[in-house]
C-alpha cells in the first residue's frame, strides 16, 4: 500500500527530510528549483567576467594568483550547480540556451562594471558576503543535491569573502589614493549588494511557495538585515564612511535601521539599463560560439576512436 505521493512529499518537507532526485515531487516544486538553481549557476558563470576583467591587471603577483584561483572556484561552483539542476531533468545545453536567450536570469549585480581594482575587493567582500548569507541558509534547503552543493560552495565562498575584505584592508589602510579607491568601490557596490537579496518579501514573486516547500529558509528581508548588521563593524574597521547616512542602531529590534533602497534603480538595471547587461551575454555567446569547432572536434575524434575500437573488436 502506498501513501499519496503529495502527502508523502509534504510529510518529508515537514520532517526536514531531504527530497532526492528520484523522489516524487510536485511539478511546481521542480520548476521552481530548476529556476533557482539555474539562476544561481548562471550567476557564478557570468560573475567570472567582471572579476576576470582584472586578472591581467592585478597589481601584485600574489593578488593575481588569488584572483585567478577565486575565479576558477566560481567556474567550479557553476559546474556543481549545473549538475544539481541536471538531476531535475534539464540539460546543461538547455540551460546555456536559456541564459543566452534571456529566458533564464543571473544575478543583476554582475551587470555593474568593475571599473577599478577596488571593485575586486568590493565584490569579494560585499557581493560574495551577501551571497554567503543567502547560501548559508540554503544549506538547509529541502532539495538534497542543492543543499549538499551549498555546503561545499559556502566553504569556498567564505575564503572569497576574506580575500576581498583583506584586499579592501590593504587599500583602506594604504595611501590616500588607495583609500579613496576603496571608498569609491564601497559606495558603488554597497547598495547593489543589498539588492541581491531580492525585493521586499511582500513583493517577491516566488517567496511564499518557496518558503512553504523549504526551498528558501529565510525571507529576503531577514537575510538582508543580517547582512546589513554584519557589514557595519567591517566598514568601521576599514575606517571608511558608511554609504547609508540613515543607518542607526535600533536597541529595541536589536538591528540596524537602514535607509530605503532605490528599487527603481534595481529594476532599471534588471530591465536592461545596466552598463553591462548586453556585454555579459554577448561575451558568453561569443565564447560559446567560438568554442563550437572545439566541441565538434572532440565529438569527431571520439567517434573515430570508437569506430577504430569496434573494428579491432570485430
Amino acid at each position: 500500500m502506498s501513501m499519496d505521493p503529495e502527502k508523502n512529499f509534504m510529510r518529508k518537507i515537514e520532517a526536514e527530510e531531504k527530497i532526492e532526485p528520484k523522489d516524487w515531487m510536485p511539478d511546481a516544486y521542480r520548476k521552481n528549483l530548476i529556476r533557482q538553481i539555474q539562476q544561481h549557476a548562471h550567476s557564478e558563470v557570468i560573475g567570472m567576467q567582471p572579476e576576470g576583467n582584472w586578472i591581467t591587471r592585478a597589481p601584485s603577483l600574489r593578488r593575481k594568483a588569488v584572483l585567478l584561483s577565486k575565479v576558477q572556484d566560481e567556474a567550479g561552483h557553476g559546474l556543481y550547480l549545473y549538475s544539481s539542476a541536471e538531476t531535475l531533468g534539464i540539460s546543461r545545453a538547455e540551460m546555456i540556451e536559456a541564459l543566452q536567450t534571456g529566458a533564464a536570469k543571473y544575478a543583476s549585480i554582475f551587470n555593474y562594471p568593475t571599473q577599478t581594482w577596488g571593485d575586486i575587493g568590493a565584490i569579494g567582500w560585499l557581493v560574495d558576503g551577501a551571497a554567503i548569507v543567502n547560501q548559508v541558509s540554503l544549506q538547509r534547503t529541502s532539495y538534497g543535491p542543492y543543499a549538499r552543493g551549498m555546503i561545499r560552495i559556502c566553504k569556498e565562498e567564505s575564503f572569497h569573502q576574506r580575500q576581498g575584505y583583506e584586499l579592501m584592508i590593504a587599500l583602506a589602510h594604504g595611501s590616500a589614493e588607495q583609500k579613496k579607491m576603496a571608498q569609491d568601490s564601497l559606495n558603488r557596490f554597497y547598495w547593489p549588494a543589498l539588492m541581491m537579496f531580492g525585493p521586499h518579501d511582500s513583493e517577491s514573486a516566488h517567496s511564499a511557495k518557496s518558503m512553504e516547500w523549504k526551498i528558501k529558509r529565510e525571507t529576503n528581508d531577514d537575510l538582508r538585515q543580517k547582512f546589513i548588521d554584519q557589514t557595519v563593524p567591517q566598514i568601521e574597521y576599514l575606517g571608511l564612511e558608511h554609504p547609508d547616512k540613515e543607518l542607526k542602531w535600533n536597541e529595541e529590534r536589536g538591528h540596524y535601521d537602514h535607509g530605503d533602497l532605490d528599487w527603481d534603480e534595481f529594476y532599471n538595471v534588471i530591465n536592461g539599463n545596466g552598463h553591462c547587461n548586453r556585454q555579459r551575454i554577448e561575451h558568453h555567446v561569443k565564447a560559446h560560439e567560438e568554442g563550437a569547432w572545439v566541441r565538434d572536434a572532440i565529438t569527431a575524434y571520439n567517434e573515430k576512436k570508437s569506430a577504430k575500437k569496434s573494428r579491432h573488436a570485430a
Partner: protein
Amino acid sequence: MMSATDLKQATLEYALRLGDDSVVLGHRISEWVSNGPFLEEDIALGNVALDYIGRARMFYGYAAELAGDGRTEDDFAYMRDAREYKNLLINELPKGDFAYTQVRQLLVDAFNTGFLAELVKSKDATLAAIAAKASKETRYHLRRSREWVLRLGDGTEESHQRAQTAVDALWGYTFEMFELDELEQQLVDAGIAVDTTRLKAQWEVEIKAILSEATLEIPAGDWAVRGGRVGYHTENLGHLLTDMQSVYRAYPGCQW
C-alpha cells in the same frame, strides 16, 4: 671560472629569465578565463595559468633574495620594461585561437618536461627545488596539451586546419629554446643552468611522434625568429606589460 660575485649575478639573471618565461605565458593563458570552449576548460586553463604565476613568484622571489637590495618579486614583474624582459619569444605571442594555445602549450610543455628534469639536478639548491615542484605540474600540463593536439589534429577538418596553421605559425619560435648565450653557457659550466642544446633531439622525437599521431605535418623549418633572451621582443610584449603593469605603476610605492 667565474668569481663568486659574478656567479651570483649570473644566477640572478637566470632566475629572472625563467621568471619572465613563466609570468608572460601565465598571463597569456589567464586570458582564457571566461573565454574557453566550455566551463571545464576555463577551470583547467585557469589551473595551468595559476601554476605559471606560482612558478614566476618562486623564480622572482629567488632573484630578489639574490639581489638582496630590497627589491621584491613584484618589482621584477612590474617595474621592468619590455627590453629588460628576457623571456623566450614563444611565450609572449598572443593567445590566438584554442588550437594555437594548445599547440603552443604542447611545444612548451614538452620542452619544459626535459628542461625541468635537468634543472632538478642543478647545483643551485633553490633552482633545483623550484624545478622539482614545477616538474610535477608540467607533466600534467603535457598530458593535457598532448591530448588536445591529438583531438584537434585528428578531429574535424576545421580543427585539423586550425591546428596545422598553429604549428606552422609557431614552429619558427622553437629554435631559440635550444640555444645558449654566453651567460647561460657559463652557468652550464658551473653546473647551475640547463644545457638546452642537449634537449633538442629528444624534444624533436617526442613532438614529431605526437604531431604525426595527430595527422599534422612538421613544417619545413625554413624560418626562425630569435631574440627573447637578449630582450629583443616581438611587438606583443609591450602591450602585455602595459596591461599587466598599469595599476602597479599608476600608484607608485603602494602596497597591495
